[in-house]
Each structure stands twice: as structure tokens, then as C-alpha cells.
């Protein structure tokens, strides 16, 4: 006797799709080649719904839901690219650019940055908000890597990959709201922390906040694609 699969059917952007119960709207949308922009989400990591770029509209509720954590329901009608959503996404990106010091032209991640790419994809031509220009530090105490708080968008990918995949949980978040920052151990310098030097956090960082000291200039692409495979191999064991 085969196990019955709980199948949900729903509509995304007018397209009838089917999904397994428990799947997120984002997963189902991407399976059906419907693009929803994301920033804190990364395949292979647990989702936290932090960046709010993947917000979608659901018929019947005025509340916008983050597609990375909202699960599918039978008969759901989802819209992923309404004018309202596009406006919100642009505003979120503008807020991210205004919050810290993102100077693309001289950033180590220029040309390989997910924030920059999303800005281009979403048609961000300028930032309407005043830049905060905070005075933030750079932690270059690690022998291989550098942390530049000026470029951090607090997506917490580094925190999650270190805790969930590497199992070291060196990274965490300190402070509240706009004063939050990522830290290693109990806000110790990265170089003298319990870091295992695996470099996964650098590979998953979407911006130039975490980078490899030996690779600066125009050659700093990152390769976060290893994560789903790593998970798959571990499950197979």
C-alpha cells in the first residue's frame, strides 16, 4: 500500500499549481519557474523571514506574507508581483542601502553582490531616503577573512550556516533594531574566536560584509551552491 501524499492545489499569479503539504509558497513558486526575489533566504539554510523581500499577497487577507516561511494551503490564491509588492520591495531595498555604507564602486563584492543585483533587477535608480552614514568598524583580526559591518544587511545567513551546517554557532546577533550587529562568540574579535575557519559564512554572505582576504579586486565571486548538496550528502549517510 503506498503512502498517500497530501497534495494541495493553489493558484500563483493566475497559474494553477500543485504542492505537497508543508511546502512554502517560495518553494512551490520556484518549482513552477515563478520568480520571487529573496535576500535572507538561501537554499540549504533554515528560513527566518528577515528581509521581507519575498512578501506576497494572498486573496482574502490584507496582510502580506513572507513566501519563504508561509506554507501552502488548499485553494490559496497568491500574487507575487503586484504594484503594491513592487513598491514595497523597492522601499525595502532603499532602506537597506540607506542604513549602512554600501559604496558599490569600491566594494570588494562589486559585480558579485546579491543586494546590488536585486537593486538592478528591481529597477532601483536612486535612494529617496537620506543615508545614515554610520561610523562602523572593520574586523580584520582573522588571518583569512574580514568582516566589514559597513556592508552587512543583517540577513543572518552567516549565523545560520555556522549553527546549522558547520555546527559551531560562532556567529550570532547582538543589540536591538537598528543597533544590531553580527558578532563572533561573545563579541570577541573574529581572529581570536572559536571560528573553525571553514569559510562557509563567507561563501553564503550576499554582500561584501564577509570576504576572503586573498581575493580582493574584481575577483570575489561567492559559491553558496554547495549547501543543498552538503545537506543531501549528510542525509544520505
Amino acid at each position, binding site marked *: 500500500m503506498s503512502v498517500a501524499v497530501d497534495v494541495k492545489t493553489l493558484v500563483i499569479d493566475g497559474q494553477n499549481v500543485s504542492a505537497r503539504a508543508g511546502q512554502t509558497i517560495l518553494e512551490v513558486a520556484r518549482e513552477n519557474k515563478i520568480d520571487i526575489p529573496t535576500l535572507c533566504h538561501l537554499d540549504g539554510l533554515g528560513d527566518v523571514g528577515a528581509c521581507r523581500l519575498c512578501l506576497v499577497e494572498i486573496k482574502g487577507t490584507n496582510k502580506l506574507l513572507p513566501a519563504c516561511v508561509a506554507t501552502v494551503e488548499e485553494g490559496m490564491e497568491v500574487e507575487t508581483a503586484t504594484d503594491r509588492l513592487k513598491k514595497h520591495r523597492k522601499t525595502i531595498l532603499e532602506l537597506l542601502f540607506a542604513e549602512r555604507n554600501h559604496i558599490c*564602486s569600491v566594494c570588494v563584492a562589486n559585480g558579485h553582490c546579491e543586494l546590488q543585483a536585486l537593486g538592478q533587477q528591481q529597477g532601483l535608480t536612486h535612494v529617496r531616503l537620506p543615508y545614515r552614514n554610520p561610523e562602523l568598524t572593520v574586523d580584520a*583580526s582573522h588571518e583569512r577573512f574580514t568582516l566589514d559591518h559597513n556592508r552587512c544587511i543583517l540577513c543572518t545567513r552567516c549565523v545560520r550556516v555556522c549553527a546549522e551546517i558547520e555546527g559551531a554557532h560562532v556567529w550570532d546577533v547582538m543589540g536591538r533594531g537598528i543597533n544590531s550587529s553580527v558578532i563572533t562568540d561573545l563579541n570577541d574579535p573574529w581572529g581570536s574566536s572559536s571560528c573553525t575557519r571553514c569559510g562557509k559564512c563567507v561563501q553564503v554572505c550576499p554582500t561584501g560584509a564577509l570576504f576572503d*582576504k*586573498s581575493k580582493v579586486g*574584481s575577483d570575489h565571486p561567492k559559491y553558496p551552491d554547495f549547501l543543498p548538496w552538503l545537506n543531501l550528502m549528510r542525509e544520505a549517510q
Partner: protein
Amino acid sequence: MSQTITIDPVTRLEGHGKITIQLNDQGLVEDAHFHVTQVRGFEKFAEGRPFYEMPSLMARICGICPVSHLIASAKACEAIMAVRIPHTAAQLRRMLNLAQMVQSHALSFFYLSSPDLLLGMESDPATRHVFGVVAAAPELGRAGIALRRFGQHIIELLGNKRIHPGWVVPGGVTEPLSSAKRDEILAMLPEAYAGIKLALTAYKQIADRFKPEIEVFANFPSNYLSLINEDESIQFTDGNLRLIGPHGGVIEDGITATRFTEVIGEAVEDYSYTKFAYYKPLGYPDGSYRVGPLARLNIVDSMGTPLAEKELIEFKQIAKGPVESSFHYHHARLIEILYGIEKIEEILTDSLILDTHVRAVAGVNRLEGAGQAEAPRGTLMHHYKVDENGLITWANLVIATGQNNNAMNKGVLQAAKSYVKDGKFTEGVLNRIEAVVRTFDPCLSCSTHAFGQMPLVLTLLNAEGKQVDQLIR
């Protein structure tokens, strides 16, 4: 009644500056200054950044000579890392620096100065620009544009970007040269040779017409500084500096970048944001010197390439000892373009030019480092101090234009005294005074580490500072 003549901004320069000329009660020139009027603060905001970001960060000072900053900065970083870069990386950087010199000199000569030279100092300002040159001498105009493209295209092929390529990094370059790109550069050479030969011939024909200008365009004895090879030939990227005196005698030889930081001081005058570099043992202003094409050709004994060598021999016949008038910067610039093309060809025939080992990796091994190179306009020096993690704690940049600053000011005064009589001046007279500054091809953006553009406003003020006349160009 004393007056002040203001030329603001000086046109056809890279960056933003103005000239003021003070007249006394008899209408004679009392004093003249070239002011650089913008400040940028690169040295300050570099503080706290990782040292290995410095080449790309400092290259943003300038859109014309970013390569010079990339190279001087990378060399300063390599002093901090205490590494010697791979041979192929060094050769590729030399080629990049020469390509930039060619395009920058082509910009200076053809776009900025050839309108004065070809169309005349007194010609109609409405057509005294590069389009006027193309209309009057189409072949020469096209050659100039092609030479600039030649340099820019090599920069793009090597660094993947025409302006601000991120390819030069501390330790070398990020990617090796492919054989396809090498062949593409080789294929561009014949057109470049033809262009510069045409320009040299044309320049020599018209230079005779400018004898009065040659006499008063910053024509005075001075010291000169530039890089030089051990075999006395010209050098743009490596090696040490030589400082010579007014009669060509060596004042100091073998000046390393570290020694440069010890012997070169920077004076400040209240009328300009650009500092005034001088050789400390001689004091300020006696230790002032000139840099750039004229200085390089005055210092070296040979170009090291056959065609440019012939041109150098001819150039050296202009004077016994150093050639003094800054008007000859134009001639020197063209000879250097020819040298650049020949040297690029030579580098491309290096059997190791396609080698893939192009980068050395190291951490912080010294807490201080300096790097020097010849920018198109003259010697450029970057000097950094870092903490043990490699974060910049202090930075100082000495720019070519700062080193020519004293000579430019003296040159402006010399020309003003010669041309402005009885408080009277014409547009052509003022253009000649601007043209003195143009001979140096100063880069004001670099020298103030400034950007901006304004229409030219020429204001004539009386002794009380009241406007008596105004010309808007």
C-alpha cells in the same frame, strides 16, 4: 588703480582651478597664482579600511589616470606585504601603465592642447576645441582619437574595464593575459605607430610658429625628478628616482619610495588646496622641482626603444642641458607615446607573457609601506601605515600636479608679466596664460584627491574688489 584679473575656471584641464592676476596701479602684473579650488579628503576616509582595498579605493581619485593610482597603491601594499610580485604580473602591469600613459598623453595633446597649437592661441574660442581640430586637420584629429582608443582598449582588454579596472591587486593582477587578447593588442599596433608618426611630424612643423610662447611658457631653470633605469633609460613603473639640478647635475640618485617619504616635503599655501612638494635638503621653495614628460626626458639618457631613441636625440638638441620651457612638454609627451607603443610591443614578445602565475599572496608583514610610479603627469607616491590587522591608520599621497605646482605658478606669473601690459588683455592673452598651465597637463582631481564643472567666468576687479567688467565664456 590696481586690479585683479580672474580666470575661473581654467578650461581644457582635468579638474577645476582658477587663475588670478594682480595688477598694480600702473597696470603692470604684480603677482599671479594658479589656484586649485576643490578638496576631497581621500587620505582621511581611507583610515580604517583594509589595506588590500586601497588600490581600488584610491583609483577612484581619477578617471583619467586611475591606473597610476592602482599601481602606486599596489606597490605600497606590496611593501606592507613584503612580497615581490611574479615576473608576468610585473610585465602586465608595465603594459597597463604604458597603455594609460598613451591614452592620457593623447587626451592632453590632441583634445586639450592641439586646439591652441593647430588653430592658434587667438582663434575663435567657439571652435577652439577638439571638433575644431578634426574639422581643420581631419587626419590628425582622427589619429589623436585613435591613439586614445588604443590605450583605453588595452586597459579594457587587460583589466576588463576602461576606467577603474579592478585587475591590479596587491600581489599582482587577478587574471593572466590570454593569447587572443595578446593578438588583438598586436593587431592594433600598426595604426598606433602611424598615428603618432603623423602627430610628431605635424608638431615639428608647427612648433616653430610658437617661438614667442616657448620663451615665456614657464621657461626658467629648475630641478627635475623622475624614475630612471640603472642603464639610464626611461622607466614608468619600477625602480628608483633621480633628482637633477638646473644644469643637469645629479642632486640625489636611487631614491626609493621609502626614501621619497623622507626627502620630499609638502608645503601649503593659503590660495590652493593642492600642496607644493619640495626636496627637503634644499628647503621650500628652492627645493621645488618639475615632474612629468619634460622632467623624464631631461633626466634619462636613452629611451631604450629604437624609434623613440631617435626622437630623444633630436629633442636633446633643443638645449644644452635640461630643456627648460614647459612648452616642450607637448613634444616630450608625443615622444613618450611613441615609446609606449614600442615598449608595449616589446612586452608582448616576452616568452612568459601568457604565464598564469600572476599573483603573490601574503598578509601584513610590515606596518608601513610606500610605492612610487610614473603617472602620465609625473611621479606619484602612495604611503600607508597599517595596524597589525592591516587596517589603514594613516595615508599620504604625493601627486604629480603637486610636484609641478610651484613651476606652474611661476610659469603663470612669467606669462602674465609678458602678455598683460597697461592693465589690458584680450581673450587670446588669457588663453595663453591658461595654455601655460595646460602644458603641464595637471590633474586637479588627483592633486586635491576635486570634481566639478563650471562655466568660465572672467572677472575684472578694481582695487576695492568691485567688479568693473565680466566675460562669460
